[in-house]
């Protein structure tokens, strides 16, 4: 009897248990299926953003055998004309410690449209990173072939799960290729798709021809997104040079034309260092952009790339240019050219002539503009100054305009741009900032308002202004007649002179270098306009000509700061005359070759050796410069 009892008892227990399990299963299965379907439906919009809820149809492909691929479902998305728009795969694979389920959308051209991890239970901090959205964004726009080759970022510290994940993608790619195949998009189509992603699929993207030259702003292409009637958004393709000076970075940035907010941005290419500047390609670095105001984009109020300061700074600077272009082209603002802004410093000006190339080099001088009224009379000069900013954190620049009229008075100060700490230097931008120096003689002390909390910036600006004043006084031709007279004295045979200093290196003692020309405009020699330090530290200003064969012409002293009248007390015997400016000592530097001056030391005059010694140093330096720089090929 006992064996029968055993069998019966086992049977009864199994049967009752089965009924219990069946009962619970009948209750829970519909709930689980409903929830899974809902999850997939919710995910579908983000996995396949191009899906159109009204015209597209989504069907599960039941005709294919998934085998051991780990694929549990493929949804085929078709448009209203029954053309396949794409596929959404549900994949499972075994991670380090759990079954992982993910969804991936692939469009008809084989580009991944979105990725989402639906389920995982891997180790927190390791495999569980697969659930972090920041690890998903890399897939959008990536070719399924690239993903299939495992060319995507894995999970830090989770080798097993990463390998399984990549292997799963490889299986998926092979299955997709074998089962559905795809025609890869051309580069143009891919670019268009990226632009479309920024502005949404409801708008049509068209090329736009701007009035401004976009190239001046680092913009390589401008597109607008239209709803058929109005332009709703603009997309800029921008190029800038980052850390790697031999390459460049390109990116797209789209602005809403109604709100001027950024719709989004994405990098297209980067020649910068892998893992640093090239991280601009990581869409996570563009996460701050959607919804950002134009001002914030211009001010660089976004995180940038950690560890890539130079590239980040260049990126932010390029956005300043994009903002400037956008303001002029689409908001109708006046172009912020130096010429247009210079009007603020010279309200009565008729024209500004860029004379930078004619002027000697100045370390901070970006541009020199002569200002004329409508009758052609010169009103003054505008200096465009750029200097290093004061931020401790990164390399920043400060750029401003400062005007000086013909009477050597300041006409104003205008802050053009700075990349100083946001919020700190704003006061420098105020329209009335710099008004206090208007009308002040450049030789007088001036007062600029200090800005609280920006002492260093203030100091940098005032130091730069002082530099401009020095440049204006010493390097810039204040009195053309005086210069012309001196030039004629130094090179009597020349008919005209032209500054050629910008062709050669800058030297602190040489104010300018002129080519002396004859009546047929042929260069017959050169004139150095330079300074020497004389007695009591007084500056001796002089012109010294040299012909094409290296023979010194006249040495003409332009100012009268060295008196030899009373030099007898120091033992001067008056051998060279009593007036330095006309002394015969100067004749020793005329009619001889520059080379001979370098080869044979000219004697000092006893009793006036400070003056003659200072002159000698300066003259020898010029002779050396002439040889070193091979001025006019005359060495």
């Amino acid at each position, binding site marked *: 009897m006992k064996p029968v009892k*055993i069998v019966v008892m086992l049977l009864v227990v199994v049967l009752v248990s089965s009924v219990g399990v069946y009962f*619970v299963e009948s209750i*829970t299965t519909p709930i689980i299926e409903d*929830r899974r379907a809902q999850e997939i439906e919710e995910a579908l919009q983000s996995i396949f953003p191009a899906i159109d809820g009204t015209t597209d149809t989504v069907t599960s492909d039941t005709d294919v055998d998934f085998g051991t691929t780990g694929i549990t479902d493929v949804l085929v998305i078709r448009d209203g004309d029954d053309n396949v728009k794409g596929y959404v795969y549900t994949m499972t694979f075994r991670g380090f410690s759990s079954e992982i389920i993910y969804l991936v959308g692939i469009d008809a051209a084989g580009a991944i449209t979105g990725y989402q991890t639906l389920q995982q239970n891997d*180790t927190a901090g390791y495999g569980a990173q697969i659930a972090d959205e920041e690890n998903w964004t890399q897939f959008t726009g990536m070719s399924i072939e690239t993903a299939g080759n495992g060319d995507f970022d894995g999970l830090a510290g989770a080798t097993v799960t990463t390998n399984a994940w990549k292997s799963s993608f490889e299986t998926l790619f092979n299955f997709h290729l074998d089962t559905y195949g795809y025609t890869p998009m051309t580069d143009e189509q891919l670019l268009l798709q990226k632009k479309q992603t920024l502005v949404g699929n409801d708008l049509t993207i068209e090329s736009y021809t701007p009035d401004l030259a976009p190239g001046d702003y680092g913009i390589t292409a401008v597109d607008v997104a239209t709803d058929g009637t109005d332009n709703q958004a603009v997309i800029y393709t921008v190029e800038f040079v980052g850390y790697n000076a031999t390459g460049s970075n390109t990116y797209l940035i789209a602005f809403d034309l109604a709100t001027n907010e950024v719709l989004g941005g994405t990098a297209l290419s980067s020649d910068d260092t892998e893992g640093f500047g090239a991280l601009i390609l990581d869409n996570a670095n563009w996460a701050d952009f959607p919804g950002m105001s134009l001002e914030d984009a211009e001010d660089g109020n976004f995180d940038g790339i950690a560890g890539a300061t130079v590239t980040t700074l260049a990126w932010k600077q390029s956005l300043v240019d994009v903002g400037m272009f956008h303001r002029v082209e689409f908001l109708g603002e006046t172009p912020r050219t130096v010429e247009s802004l210079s009007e603020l410093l010279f309200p009565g000006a008729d024209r500004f002539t860029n004379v930078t190339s004619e002027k000697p080099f100045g370390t901070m001088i970006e541009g020199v503009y002569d200002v004329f009224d409508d009758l052609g009379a010169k009103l003054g000069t505008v200096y465009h100054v750029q200097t290093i900013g004061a931020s401790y954190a990164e390399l920043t620049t400060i750029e401003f305009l400062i005007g000086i009229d013909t009477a050597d008075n300041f006409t104003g100060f205008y802050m053009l741009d700075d990349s100083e700490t946001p919020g700190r230097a704003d006061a420098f931008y105020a329209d009335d900032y710099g008004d206090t120096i208007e009308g002040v003689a450049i030789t007088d002390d001036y007062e600029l308002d200090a800005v609280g909390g920006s002492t260093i910036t203030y100091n940098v600006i005032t130091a730069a202004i002082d530099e401009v004043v020095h440049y204006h006084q010493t390097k810039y031709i204040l009195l053309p007649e005086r210069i012309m007279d001196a030039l004629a004295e130094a090179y009597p045979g020349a008919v005209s002179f032209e500054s050629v200093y910008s062709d050669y290196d800058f030297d602190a003692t040489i104010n300018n270098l002129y080519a002396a020309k004859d009546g047929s405009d042929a260069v017959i020699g050169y004139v150095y306009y330079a300074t020497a330090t004389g007695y009591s530290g007084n500056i001796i200003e002089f012109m010294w000509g040299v012909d094409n064969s290296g023979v010194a012409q006249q040495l003409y002293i332009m100012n009268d700061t060295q008196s030899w009248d009373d030099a007898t007390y120091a033992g001067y015997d008056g051998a060279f005359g009593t007036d330095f400016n006309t002394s015969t000592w100067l004749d020793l530097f005329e009619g001889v070759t520059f080379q001979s001056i370098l080869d044979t030391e000219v004697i000092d005059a006893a009793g006036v050796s400070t003056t003659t010694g200072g002159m000698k140093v300066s003259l020898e330096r010029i002779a050396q410069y002439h040889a070193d720089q091979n001025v006019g090929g005359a060495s």
Partner: protein
Amino acid sequence: MARKQKSLSDVFTAGFFKQNPVFVQFLGMCPTLAVTGSVESAIGMGAGVIFVLVLSNLIISLIRSAVPREVRIPIYIVVIASFVTMLEMLMNAFVPDLAAQLGTFLSLIVVNCLILGRAEAFASKNGPVRSVLDGLGMGIGFTGGITLLAFFRELLGKGSITIWGDFALNLIPSDFQISILVAPAGAFLVFGILVSQINKIKLRRAEQGEVA
């Protein structure tokens, strides 16, 4: 002489400390080590074990006299496996996040020796009321034990305690967290330290008892 039967309250509270399944009996070590990375999953696992333990104890005590001794283990396993299957289905349906968090360890409740152990050692020899109380008490003791373990692992390893996303206790800055404690190896470390501390207390009490 027959042993004196324990009172109902003794049956119920035995699992709390005296015969705590985790720290005294060392039963159910697999989930003890595997799901104690977070307090949330420890409580979830504990709730699952209570569910299975109470119901399997109840059913086994009800059928104990009808079960032939030779096949009692397969029958207990069938009963336990059925409840685990039901639990899995119910959790997947109603608390899917927790089910996903517990993963395969949910299924492994079937072979949790705590459950089979109580079925064999208690439910098969006691009436339904006592068996239910035993299951409940042991389950609570087990839950308390693994929750304590999880508390230290999560707190020291992640710096915070998060329960169902709503209640979060952030205590330790990231620089001072010991992330190995939430990794599998950390379970052994924390478990070993806790057991040593409990044994220390037990030893001290025993010595005090001897002195007294």
